[in-house]
């Protein structure tokens, strides 16, 4: 039934657009028929150009007013603030240029709309003008490039750090696992060849003959201590994945056959994040939406949605197959004491394969 109905609707829409177009065409066919713009068209479209400028400004303001709160979530890593600063500076420049150039473009289109008998100015070149608008972008971009590269090097350079926590992120269709190096601080060798050992209990393919691996800890929920650098080693067992942690301004692809790296220092615990006014407001807003959706579901006889509680997330951000959209892992950032306590509760690889 829905099939026939929607097919009919589709056909009707098609026919009506066609017919409207036809009527429209017939209605003005008699008046004048060169199909080249005349003064009336220039007037009308010139004014619409100006209106369109207002539309662009309008949709910009509207979007920021209505959806401004969804932009970049609060940063939760040490380099996050640097990242955000660079982002807002770039944005400021972009907005400035966008506002001015769109204004000039559309205003000129409005102001100089054609009239019969009017002649355009023969103005083909001006080297000085062109030099100016070559040099200004050069200077601006030089600044942005230097600032960007400085921040980039800062974020991406992985320095030896005895105190750093080494964690392996392990990706597979369609879930994440994490491996901690254990007491010795060294991750044991691993390869997909070992995945079938120990009846599938060797979840990330640790080489059981490597003593460094025996105290490794493999988990399905990522726990991180606050204030300590975390050095991630990323692996994938099947296809490309990307470990995306938006709150920490962190992302790195997981590539089968190689180990990729990324490091950051979380600076807010999950609990601290939950009390940030910005996050509180966001959670409240989401729960309002969820409550409304629940009402509809309950009316249909389905289960209501659980209320949302803030948690850090690890998402997959490289297309990896059917359930790509649901490949996630919860991240818990906690105090070092809580972290140590949690760690002692986990089983080491040696214990798992016993």
């Amino acid at each position, binding site marked *: 039934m829905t099939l026939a109905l929607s097919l009919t609707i589709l056909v009707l829409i098609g026919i009506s657009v066609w017919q409207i177009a036809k009527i429209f065409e017939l209605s003005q066919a008699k008046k004048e028929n060169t199909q080249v713009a005349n003064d009336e068209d220039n007037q009308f*479209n010139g004014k619409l150009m100006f209106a369109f400028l207002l539309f662009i400004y309008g949709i910009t303001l509207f979007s920021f007013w209505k959806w401004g709160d969804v932009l970049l979530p609060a940063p939760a890593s040490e380099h996050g603030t640097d990242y955000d600063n660079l982002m807002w500076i770039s944005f400021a420049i972009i907005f400035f240029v966008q506002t001015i150039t769109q204004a000039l473009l559309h205003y000129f289109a409005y102001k100089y709309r054609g009239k019969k008998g009017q002649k355009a100015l023969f103005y083909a070149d001006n080297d000085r003008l062109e030099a100016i608008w070559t040099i200004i972008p050069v200077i601006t971009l030089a600044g942005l490039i230097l600032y960007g590269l400085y921040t980039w090097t800062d974020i991406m350079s992985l320095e030896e750090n005895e105190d750093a926590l080494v964690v392996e992120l392990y990706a597979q269709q369609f879930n994440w696992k994490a491996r901690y190096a254990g007491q010795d601080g060294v991750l044991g060798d691993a390869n997909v060849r070992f995945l079938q050992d120990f009846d599938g209990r060797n979840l990330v393919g640790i080489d059981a003959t490597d003593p460094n691996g025996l105290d490794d800890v493999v988990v399905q929920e990522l726990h991180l201590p606050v204030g300590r650098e975390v050095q991630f080693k990323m692996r994938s067992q099947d296809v490309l994945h990307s470990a995306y942690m938006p709150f920490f301004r962190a992302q790195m692809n997981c590539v089968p056959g190689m180990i990729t790296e990324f490091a950051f220092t979380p600076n807010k615990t999950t609990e601290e994040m939950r009390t940030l006014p910005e996050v509180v407001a966001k959670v409240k807003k989401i729960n309002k939406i969820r409550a409304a959706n629940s009402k509809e579901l309950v009316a249909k006889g389905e289960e209501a949605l659980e209320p949302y509680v803030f948690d850090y997330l690890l998402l997959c951000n490289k297309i990896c197959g059917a359930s790509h959209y649901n490949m996630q892992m919860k991240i818990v950032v906690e105090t070092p004491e809580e972290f140590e306590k949690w760690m002692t509760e986990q089983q080491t690889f040696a214990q798992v394969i016993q």
Partner: protein
Amino acid sequence: MSTVAAHVEEEDHGHHHKETFITKYVFSQDHKMIAKQYLITGLFMGIIGIAMSLLFRLQLAWPEQPFGIFEVLLGKWAPDGVMDPNVYLALVTIHGTIMVFFVLTAGLSGTFSNLLIPLQIGARDMASGLLNMISFWLFFLSSVIMVASLFVEAGPAAAGWTIYPPLSALPQAQPGSGMGMTLWLVSMAIFIASSLLGSLNYIVTVLNLRTKGMTMTRLPLTIWAFFVTAIIGVVSFPVLLSAALLLIMDRSFGTSFFLSDIFIQGEVLHYQGGSPVLYEHLFWFLGHPEVYIVLLPALGITSEIIATNARKPIFGYRAMVASILAIAFLSTIVWGHHMFISGMNPFLGSVFTFTTLLIAIPSAVKAFNYITTLWKGNLQMNPAMLFSIGLVSTFITGGLTGIILGDSTLDINVHDTYFVVAHFHLVMGISALYGLFAGVYHWFPKMFGRMMNKNLGYVHFWVTAVAAYGVFFPMHFIGMAGLPRRYYTNTAFPYFDDLANINVVITVFALIAGAAQLVFLYNFIHSMFYGKEAEQNPWRSNTLEWTAPVEHMHGNWPGAIPHVHRWAYDYSKPGQEEDFVPQHIPLKEGEEELQH
């Protein structure tokens, strides 16, 4: 075809070969007919590509809701009318492939390079009519194969239009990586062959067949754009071909170019020592120049149309040519900005950030020069002019966010989110589509001898312009919020619940934009048969194509080819009666040619 060039110099060349229906309309070697064939095939593919985007937009706005239209079009892939996740991925993949390659490369460049290169440089035809014909038919064949891949048992390719291995290499990884992917690769290999034949032909024609007086510095900017685009294509498409061939080897002959250490579906595979990162390098070595292969012809078309309709010379002709050349050069050394977080050495990221942000400079020059061309003009608001101004607007809006994405640091958090989707759709998708529309409205009289209806053109433009911003402006927001692209739905993350209503807004605008294209389609088809008959030079333009008769003929001009005496932009030149002086008019006594 040198024989044509040789004998058409004679007056009565038309009688030399009798044309049958087949040689005139099907296996034609005439560049004007081939241009029309490209356009119509491109438009047909465009309808498929755009329709697909509307389908997955429905899913994104109302996730996992049943739609009758899904049942009709997707059949078993939409059980009870709910779209399957694999189908969603297939739709975004084929949408991207079709729009980028089949519509905006072949449909745009193929149409207008073919139509305009011989006509604007004053040549009887392309250097090789035969290769030109083969080029079109290879394109047609690749289109047929791509469309056929939609109907295979396990569905078409679904690994994203970039088809990164291992996802695209292993049928175990997703159903679309089976037969569908094989057809995708075969289709693209043929497409590349077609594109190379076309490009070589364009390059040779521009270099060798210009009429007397048509120096390189008198070439219209359209020709410069097509010429440079063809060079980029020749440089970069073969690299994609090699990537595709290596991928075919990995898929079918057990080699390990891109694969290593893989465990999938409970099985360790034998591949050792390959790297998907290598594929990414090869892919983007074409993939990024491809952006300019799509965009430069649109900018060339815009330059011509803005100058003609502003009744003013294009401002800074030399700078425009220089920036086309600069963009072309830079486009081949920036591919790594798609790979900042691919696992390649971060130092490479620094280098690519540097080269990438440099592209902003020639781009800015172009934008400012367009704006200055409008200044103190006498703007004739024909539909083609509106689309050209619209192009400059979306080129600016979309281009500016490139400053964020091209910065390796900022890319970390917005990489592969909807922010990227918004950026490239505005700067290359919408801009190039506007270029295509502008070109169709402007050269329709040249192609079909009839005018398109201007008022329908206005409706088409204004609805599209509003809807395009309505679709892609809000999309930046969901991207900045961290929503990854290629997600079947965002309901798996309660954190994204507040983005649902933005997705509805986007989809509503997308549907409106889609409906507006029906107006264009009506106007196009109807005008082809019933449009008002065109005058020889309806837009009062300077370029040579308007000196050729309305009625198409083999060899383009009856009698001798006009000679060229000036550049293409003598609009509103002081001391002239009319506000345009076509290129073939000799300089008046005492008139100076502008030193440009």
